């Protein structure tokens, strides 16, 4: 790990925490407001690449587990990782890696559509892949119902992937990090 790796990871962990301050829409069926926080997964991967992006989310996750109130609404602590939604939290780290890996592969010809695909694969696909079976097992509701239940979040997450794609392409022009 170079100094740059550590600095980027630390700062994007902090960005992910700060995104929790931005309210998006309040989905009527879900009590909690959906914030921009999970954008951090797609942005860290899409802007920093696989290794640094995953590191950033690992730092965010470790500090939240250690008891900093980093999740939206001032929540945190190790309980978030042991409860029914723990799989989603772990999915953040691997999701950032996947988004970053795909973004690096498509870097020279990156456009909003490709950035969207990378964001969906990592920030939705990977996160749900870990989160849903975990939820099904821990809550004893089975895979199928856990899947259906999680679909409430899909529209919001797709919207975030679209926003992330716009931002990643804009940052590639303004301040490219990958390939530098």
């Amino acid at each position: 790990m170079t100094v740059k790796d550590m600095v980027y990871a630390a700062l994007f962990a902090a960005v992910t925490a700060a995104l929790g301050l931005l309210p998006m829409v309040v989905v009527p069926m879900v009590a909690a407001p959906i914030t921009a926080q999970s954008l951090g997964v797609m942005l860290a991967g899409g802007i920093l690449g696989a290794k640094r992006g995953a590191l950033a989310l690992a730092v965010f996750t470790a500090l939240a587990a250690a008891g900093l109130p980093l999740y939206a609404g001032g929540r945190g602590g190790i309980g978030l990782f042991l409860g029914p939604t723990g799989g989603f939290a772990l999915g953040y780290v691997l999701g950032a890696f996947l988004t970053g890996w795909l973004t690096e592969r498509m870097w020279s010809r990156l456009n909003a559509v490709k950035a969207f695909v990378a964001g969906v694969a990592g920030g939705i696909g990977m996160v749900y892949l870990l989160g849903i079976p975990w939820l099904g097992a821990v809550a004893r509701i089975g895979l199928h119902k856990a899947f259906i239940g999680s679909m409430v979040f899909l529209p919001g997450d797709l919207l975030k992937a679209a926003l992330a794609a716009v931002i990643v392409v804009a940052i590639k022009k303004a301040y490219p990090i990958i390939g530098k």
Partner: protein
Amino acid sequence: MFEICLSRVTWLHRVPAGIKLSVLAVAGAAVFLTDDRRVLAGLVGFAFSLPLLAWLPLRPLARQVLPAAVLIAALVVFHLALGDADSAVLVAARLSTVILLAVTLTLTTRASAMVEAMERILAPLRFVGVSPAKAGFTLSLAIRFIPVLFAITGEIREAQKVRGLERSVVAVALPLLVRTLRMADDLSEAIAARAYDGD
């Protein structure tokens, strides 16, 4: 500092973080591995009595527990509606034990002590090339910069308010990211200028 840990010290604060983490790990594993009602009842009793024995104030406790409690209640209702009382009891017992113990740990342990405990747990990763000193340094850097980025986010939202854009995620995130990336370059230089040669 900016953390969930209560500033009013209880006897649980004085128990080393490593011991509290071990208790959580053992109780957390036990509650998921056993179906025995007596063992489960014992663990639930332990989880509910610990915050009471430590005289934790109710308001911060409720604030951390509430979102999980809503979810657990929904799951219990769901299982009961399907006539599966066994699952309702198991889910309620398991999740409330884990959540209560974890929140109690978080409320009574300083983040710095938790980070140190994690460094010790992760120390064996040294053999696969992860340096505990670097990991610790990265965590400290993030702790230092979280309040800075909160402040910057506030400033940017303020500025975008004038243009009616403070709720636009892109209008806030884009300047936030550009400033963060510039800051990363400055900060890397500042670390090098102070003779850090960890790489």
